């Protein structure tokens, strides 16, 4: 079981952090374009889901499965979006994404007084903690 990569977006469409662990194929476009594409897709999917929803518009997107990878999505009420790609055998990773948010992102980015909200995250400590956590995950 493999975790491919992780995107963190804020509510203003900017990608605060990107990290890849295993990636065999590039999208063939500049990274910045790829971020925009990813955000755009998430955004459209979300609005489609809520428009076509039969029950209520809450807690829409959690991810999708393609034939050879799986995308997981977690959004905080404050609008941070965590997108993780894994292989298809991985189950529900909402808790993992929540852990990344609550124990790593909040701890080392939000609570860091010199990190300004909305700016790209370049904290080494955050990167190291995130990497440790991903490496430790049992299904890795």
């Amino acid at each position, binding site marked *: 079981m493999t975790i491919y990569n992780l995107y963190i977006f804020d509510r203003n469409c900017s990608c605060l952090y990107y990290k890849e662990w295993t990636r065999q194929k590039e999208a063939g476009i500049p990274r910045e374009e790829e971020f925009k594409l990813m955000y755009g897709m998430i955004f459209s999917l979300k609005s489609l889901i809520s428009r076509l929803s039969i029950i209520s518009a809450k807690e829409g997107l959690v991810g999708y499965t393609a034939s050879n990878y799986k995308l997981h999505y977690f959004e905080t*009420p404050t609008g941070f979006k965590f997108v993780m790609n894994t292989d298809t055998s991985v189950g529900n990773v909402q808790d993992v994404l929540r852990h990344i948010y609550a*124990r790593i992102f*909040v701890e080392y980015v939000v609570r860091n007084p010199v990190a300004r909200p909305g700016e790209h995250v370049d904290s080494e400590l955050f990167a190291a903690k995130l990497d440790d956590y991903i490496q430790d995950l049992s299904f890795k």
Partner: protein
Amino acid sequence: MSRQGRPQDTRKVSGELFSLTYGALVAQLVRDYEKDEEVNQQLDKMGYNIGVRLIEDFFARSQQGRCHDFAQAADVLTKVGFKMFLGVVPTVANWSAKGDEFSLILDQNPLVDFVELPETHQGLLYSNIICGVIRGALEMVQLEVKVWFVQDQLRGSDSTEIRVKFLKKLEDAVPAGED
């Protein structure tokens, strides 16, 4: 040191140290600015900056999801938010007829433990930072609000009352090229 266990972390600072620290901050602002209104504004601004970060801490610690309406937000704000960060639970009261405005009544305000406002600063809203924090925090959950002090124990009222008014719901930013 790794602090992975923080959400269950029970370490606390003394309440007195907290109120003294805040007191020193306000007193310094009062020395630095000429008018009480300017100090109030600075406190609000600081509170806002705290609020936009504090809300993340709030979600990281509580399992709170998104609120359905303003009334629920008021409930969570007092029962979970105030309790978590100030250790008091204000009463929600005086809802406006339209349901877009309510008051927080604080019987006890931990910020003002030892404070006596000097005669020369009767215009000072000592705890105005709270207004800023509420405004900042709610803005991050797409609620634009106006927050202000109605009455303050420090100024001789029986209780401290903070008014919160709902202005509008903010939407997520739309990526370029989308509708």
